[in-house]
């Protein structure tokens, strides 16, 4: 069963106008509008951040830890996502950002881009010898992993069972501090995140038995703190040890390129991801692809809602920055860990959230009822009833989420029904 207790997205009821924008665009139909406010079915929420991105009233908030929480620890380590480097104009040296992080209060930094290079190498091994059903699906984007966990149980055997680069970075950073003689209790590891899905995954320990980080900060929250610190640096310590391969994980197809296989597919943007997953489930035509990289956000992690910069601008900047870097600086052999160090400690749970009834006969009865209700609905999916589609409205009635006598507003309201083609009914 799911042990999820942390929510990636929360609502500011003061700001929510009940406008149905988020509800209509939620890819897992996890939102309804009740009493004029959006409400989230958290068992269906995959943390993709679409609602945060789309809300015209900024009423959807991504959860993350505030910067001040780092002060709970004596020895603070920042592990920044590679997308962070795409947020700054004219950045020519990653060390400027890393030294900036030290200047604002961290004692050490460990780039997630470094561990990304290790995960790429481990992926190569898994593709060759991992006995995973082909095509192997990347699991680095937690929103995609969550989507598969609620909707695509068929594809679970295709999942790459490796920890994400952030997990590996957290483990290695902590080890480095411990071997420098710092007491375990004093070490705080903080991920600097581009998206709420990562916050969610790390808080709940997706793929691991217990959370590996002590806090997850938002790029958008530290940006204004970091920028002046970067400008006022008096010396630049060489801290970065990341190649272009690690940096490229910030953008779509960066991960796939790192696996070294030519037969890959990379899709980004949640709707495109869903299309690919549907195709994978129904068609046999993707059988000759070795690796599938999926990112819920457009352009990859640079598209996450906790970034501040436009994803395409960030992508262009990172392309320039990567030209200045050597290809790869981190190798499994140098780290000296066995493959186990990189593997999932546990398989993420599949959540049965769409099944209307455990008893199949009852479930069939319920779906027949859904079809019957649908016959009388206008099928315009206007959202006025507070459900994202006429079908979802019918399902909500049948499953008892809303009272059976709830009316379709398009049908009962004379003015609204002017919009309908009456001849069609």
């Amino acid at each position, binding site marked *: 069963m799911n042990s999820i207790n942390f929510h990636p997205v929360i609502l500011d009821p003061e700001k929510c106008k009940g406008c149905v924008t988020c509800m209509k665009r939620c890819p897992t139909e996890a939102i309804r509008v009740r009493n004029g406010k959006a409400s989230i079915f958290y068992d269906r929420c995959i943390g993709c951040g679409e609602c945060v991105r789309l809300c015209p009233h900024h009423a959807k908030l991504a959860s993350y830890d505030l910067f001040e929480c780092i002060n709970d620890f004596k020895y603070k380590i920042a592990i920044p996502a590679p997308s962070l480097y795409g947020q700054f104009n004219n950045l020519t040296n990653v060390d400027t950002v890393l030294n900036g992080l030290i200047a604002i209060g961290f004692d050490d930094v460990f780039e997630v881009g470094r561990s990304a290079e290790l995960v790429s190498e481990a992926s190569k091994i898994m593709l060759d010898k991992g006995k995973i059903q082909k095509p192997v699906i990347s699991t680095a984007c937690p929103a995609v992993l969550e989507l598969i966990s609620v909707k695509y149980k*068929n594809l679970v055997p295709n999942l790459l069972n490796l920890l994400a680069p952030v997990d590996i970075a957290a483990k290695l950073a902590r080890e480095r501090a411990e071997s420098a003689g710092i007491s375990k209790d004093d070490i705080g590891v903080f991920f600097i995140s581009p998206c709420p899905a990562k916050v969610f995954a790390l808080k709940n320990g997706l793929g691991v038995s217990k959370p590996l980080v002590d806090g997850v900060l938002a790029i958008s929250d530290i940006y204004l703190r970091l920028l002046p610190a970067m400008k006022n640096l008096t010396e630049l310590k060489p801290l970065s040890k990341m190649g272009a391969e690690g940096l490229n994980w910030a953008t779509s197809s960066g991960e796939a390129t790192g696996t070294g296989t030519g037969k890959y597919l990379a899709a980004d943007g949640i709707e495109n991801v869903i299309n690919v997953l549907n195709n994978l*489930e*129904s*068609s046999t035509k993707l059988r000759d692809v070795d690796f599938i990289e999926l990112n819920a956000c457009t352009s990859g992690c640079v598209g996450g809602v906790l970034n501040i910069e436009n994803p395409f601008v960030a992508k262009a900047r990172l392309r320039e920055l990567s030209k200045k870097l050597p290809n790869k600086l981190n190798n499994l052999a140098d780290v000296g860990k066995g493959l186990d160090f990189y593997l999932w400690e546990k398989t993420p749970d599949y959540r049965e959230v*769409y*099944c209307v009834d*455990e008893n199949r006969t009852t479930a069939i009865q319920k*779906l*027949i009822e859904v079809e019957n209700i649908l016959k009388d609905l206008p099928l315009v999916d206007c959202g006025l009833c507070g459900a994202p589609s006429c079908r979802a409205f019918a399902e909500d009635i049948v499953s008892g989420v809303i009272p059976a006598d709830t009316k379709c507003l398009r049908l009962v309201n004379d003015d609204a029904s002017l919009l309908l083609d009456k001849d069609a009914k």
Partner: protein
Amino acid sequence: MSNIHLEYTVEGNNFSSAGMASDEVKNNLKKLGIPPEDIRRVAISMYEGEINMVIHAGGGHAYVDIFVDHIEIWLIDEGKGIENIELAMKPGWSTAPDDVRSLGFGAGMGLPNMVKYTDDFHIESEVGKGTKVKLTINFH
């Protein structure tokens, strides 16, 4: 015995909407809690049938009945029909035009896959009149 009845129109030569009917059926099966492996068999065999109607028949209709222990899918078109069914059933044999093949379709695995992934497969076809396919998949 009560069953869910669903009907879909499949548009001919429209590759962007191809697969929508099988996606809808798949979503219904997920809501019923049908085992994933059975859903996969339904999805693959129905998708192949849908694509066949798109490529060869100028479209057609899908009639789907979901029962407690199995699903029956009729794919009916009024297209050009199949001249030699025995030949069409051979893996790799295809009459799809080159432009369709260049889209990644028409590899000659349509009917063989339908046989492979169903528990019962029935086909009748008349040249100039059309083709009827019935797919039956039992649930575990």
